């Protein structure tokens, strides 16, 4: 019964989304046709759709889409790995946290985009500087999640592990990691969005390939239709990667209270 209700509810939600977006596009189309707006300022939805379809039908999009996706995935994974690693050691070793936290906070609060030119100087205009930017954007939310998660473990669970004579690796892999999952996944959700932003911004600055490059190219050539089609593609990449993490989180956290609130309502 509940599963059926869930499917019905999600169909309803998708329907509402589609309706809302259709109304928006309709207003956009009416505005463009009734007012004399130059195409390079605001192309009609039809032109954007045509550019969008052309990107795929000519196959022009694939190398760019592939490059950006690859950067996002690799950068995200490295960032997650380092975030968990740093988070664990920061949660465990107080002096390390005291020593490095100021630098990390500095790195986190500084607008990363401001660091891109520096990364380009240090790592060149190749893929390395792009990955460095993405990794730097992903690490912090993941690390914070792990630190909070490990800190949230009840004392009695630590006692239990001590009674069972569990070693550090067992404690980490069997208990700390799982207790960190809820916090970790909220970190991952922020992280994946940051990773896409990082990839696009890095591509603006350097290189001749990637979705970010399509945007700057469309802008520079006043091909606003292409520019907006490119934006739509980046939005889709963002949504899809976010949804993958969200679904994974829902699966991993099916035991957790936050996933069962809907049953109460």
């Amino acid at each position, binding site marked *: 019964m509940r599963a059926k209700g869930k499917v019905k509810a999600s169909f309803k939600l998708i329907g509402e989304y589609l309706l809302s977006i259709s109304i928006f596009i309709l207003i956009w189309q009416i505005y463009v046709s009734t007012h004399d707006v130059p195409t390079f300022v605001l192309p009609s939805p039809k032109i954007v759709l045509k550019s969008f379809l052309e990107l795929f039908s000519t196959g022009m999009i694939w190398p760019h889409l592939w490059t950006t996706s690859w950067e996002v995935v690799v950068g995200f994974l490295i960032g997650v790995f380092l975030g968990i690693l740093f988070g664990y050691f920061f949660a465990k070793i107080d002096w390390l946290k005291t020593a490095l936290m100021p630098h990390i906070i500095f790195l986190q609060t500084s607008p990363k985009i401001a660091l891109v030119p520096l990364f380009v100087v240090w790592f060149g205009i190749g893929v390395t500087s792009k990955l460095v930017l993405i990794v730097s954007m992903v690490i912090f939310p993941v690390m914070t999640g792990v630190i909070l998660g490990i800190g949230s473990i009840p004392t009695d*669970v630590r*006692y239990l592990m001590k*009674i069972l*004579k569990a070693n550090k690796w067992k404690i980490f892999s069997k208990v700390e990691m799982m207790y960190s999952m809820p916090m970790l996944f909220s970190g991952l959700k922020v992280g994946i969005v940051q990773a896409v932003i990082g990839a696009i911004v890095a591509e603006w600055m350097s290189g001749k390939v990637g979705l970010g490059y399509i945007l700057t190219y469309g802008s520079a050539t006043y091909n606003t239709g292409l520019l907006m089609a490119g934006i739509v593609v980046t939005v889709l990449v963002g949504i899809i990667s976010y949804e993958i993490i969200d679904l994974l989180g829902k699966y991993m956290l099916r035991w957790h*209270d936050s996933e069962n609130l809907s049953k109460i309502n």
Partner: protein
Amino acid sequence: MQNDYCLKTHNLSKVYHGLMKEDTIALQDINLEIKKGEFVSIIGPSGCGKSTFLRIIGGLDKPTKGSIEYEGGPKQDLGFVFQDSVLLPWKTVKQNAGFPLEIKKIKTKESEERLDDLLNLVGLTEFKDSLPRELSGGMKQRVSIARALSYDAPILLMDEPFGALDALTRDHMNVELLKIWQKTNKTIVFVTHSISESVFLSDRVVVMSTRPGKINEIVDIDLERPRDVSVRETEEFQEYSKYLRRIIG
């Protein structure tokens, strides 16, 4: 057999050093010998250090002074039941009960079967695939008892395990615990603040006094076993309860 000790403490003391105020002596020179297969309760007013004492026996806390001798040597396996069930919320009842086997890497076909027997013993066979959030407080505590028994440690330490349960469930769990104790021949050290619970369960009741935490008196409970709820109605039971109430004061 009955004269063999299972664990002994020698002049066990625990002092908490205060930075600004006087040191707190939680435990002072506790000498206690617990026999194999015995059911011993430790009772006393809150703050008398009974939980600290149990944690030290369990190796969860270090004594300031003194030592503990286990029959099985310093690496003695112990089972511990906490006041809260401390179940892992992502694991099912069976996985929680078998968690020690997973940690100690002693999962075999036999241990799996033993686990099923244990779940049967604590009456949770039907719920073995449920998650902890689907269980009542009493059921959760039964899972944690099964977990403490799963790796067959000879000593079971219990820190007010039924303190958070309602009176009816508590009485029921007491009867169940005695059955489990009789079937498994464990040595049980049981911390409680309920006089009737300690009389009902124990061979001996250790009464502690507060500040500094010391053993006040050890009372032998000579009630016939096996005991069931009707024991509570007997005059002897009432006498023991009255006596304990007086010395705890």
